[in-house]
């Protein structure tokens, strides 16, 4: 007899429903300045959506977000590949990557504003700086984990360094690269909000700040929830891409668990 098992999406839905109900029950007991609850947030969401404020803010936020994030991938992946592959580059550049990952970026925002102004460029730059390092570090780590025997295969067929990098190391590193790209989503979202707080106040970050200044806690929660939902969606999208570009990985690893 096989036991019928609840599908993963059903478990997740139940979990979210339970959380929302709990929040609703407890949140409505609290003074609406100190906290909020789902139905109040949903109402605020509807107001913001109807007034067009939310749509406009999302467009404002997503443009620098996407530019910075995509640039982080375009720069981070090749950088991680060469730093991981070539001893000299690892010794010369690795230290900046490690340090950059831990850089207190918020503290540098005023300087970045001096360089790039208050507009679009500085926001994209902040997103880029926050998300490029996890991608680079993961790619770098992935390269160092490629079995030497696979590189020997390339060498035994007289493949050039570049060919080995492109045809063996890059595909072997893909799961690490995708993990780095996933980790970077969270940091990029945080970076975007930081950018909107500290540069020209605009986008979703502006809604948060303005609502907070008016003690309108329910409205303040709207962009926060929107951003979290967006991060989940992006994460799901990356997982989907990963299964498309590296299907062998999931097949080898096997996702059977208790």
């Amino acid at each position, binding site marked *: 007899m096989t036991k019928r098992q609840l599908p993963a999406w059903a478990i997740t839905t139940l979990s979210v429903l339970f959380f929302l109900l709990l929040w609703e029950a407890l949140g409505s007991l609290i003074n609406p300045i100190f906290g909020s609850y789902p139905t109040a947030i949903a109402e605020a969401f509807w107001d913001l959506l109807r007034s067009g404020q939310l749509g406009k803010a999302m467009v404002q936020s997503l443009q620098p977000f996407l530019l910075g994030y995509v640039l982080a991938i375009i720069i981070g992946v090749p950088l991680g590949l060469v730093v991981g592959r070539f001893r000299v580059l690892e010794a010369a550049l690795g230290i900046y990557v490690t340090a950059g990952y831990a850089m207190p970026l918020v503290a540098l925002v005023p300087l970045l504003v001096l360089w790039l102004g208050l507009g679009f460029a500085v926001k994209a730059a902040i997103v880029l700086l926050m998300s490029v390092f996890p991608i680079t570090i993961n790619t770098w780590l992935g390269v160092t984990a490629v079995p030497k025997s696979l590189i020997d295969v390339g*060498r035994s*067929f007289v493949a050039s360094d570049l060919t080995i990098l492109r045809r063996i190391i890059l595909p072997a590193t893909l799961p690490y690269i995708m993990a780095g790209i996933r980790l970077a989503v969270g940091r990029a979202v945080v970076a975007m909000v930081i950018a909107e707080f500290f540069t020209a106040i605009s986008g979703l970050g502006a809604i948060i700040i303005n609502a907070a200044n008016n003690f309108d806690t329910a409205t303040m929660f709207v962009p926060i929830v929107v951003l979290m939902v967006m991060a989940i969606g992006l994460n799901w999208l990356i997982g989907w891409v990963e299964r498309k570009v590296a299907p062998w990985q999931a097949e080898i690893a096997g996702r059977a668990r208790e």
Partner: protein
Amino acid sequence: MGQVSLVEVSKRFTLRIDGEVQEVNALDRVSFTVDDGEIVALIGPSGCGKTTALRIAMGLEAATAGSVKVDGREVTGCGYDRGMVFQHAELLPWLSALENVMFGLEMKGLRGAPLRETAMQYIELVGLKDSSNRRPHQLSGGMQQRVGIARALAIDPKVLLMDEPFGALDAQTRESMQEELLQIHGRTGKTILFVTHDLDEAVLLADRVVVMQRGIVQETIAVPLPRPRGDLGAIRGSSEFAETRYHIWRALHVAPGASH
């Protein structure tokens, strides 16, 4: 043609153990020759340097002294005159069986229709026509190693170098792979140098067995079994098999460097 000779090949490693620097002689003036069309087995206990010798012959590692020659020409690195079969097949997991064979051919410069056709021809040679689009993890260990052999053979090397090619397989699969390798050898006539730690395998497959111990060639033993060796089961029961096997066993059990 396809003659390989190792001439006075030495390999020294420097190991640092707890701050102490140790010089290890992995290979000490190793010399032997594999003649055109011949199968030679390199046998010895682990750490005797047999795999190092093979890797130097392939050009994956450089010798500290001495040289390797293929048909008289000195080896300075990897080349298409030699094809390597790795211990665990080492197929690229993201490529299908056919694509893995195509990989080597592509590196050699083949493109387009001939690339695919040649690869398919070698996939068929190793009996994997129906599994050509499977990825490595969808193949059994034996099938994976067949792809490994096809990949090495496809570039049409003069010499096939094999590093314990059947060591990771179960006994039954190993036996059928041994028979298959002999058949492939019969059809292609390639020179084969293979590393093994399996006495039976060395006697069944090889024309000569090079016994190594602690980085030196202890003894080279000719196998007096005629070719083609059709029925390996019958050979196992023959007195020549038993005698040769015993001869090699003794060579593996004398003190390194001692003559007897």
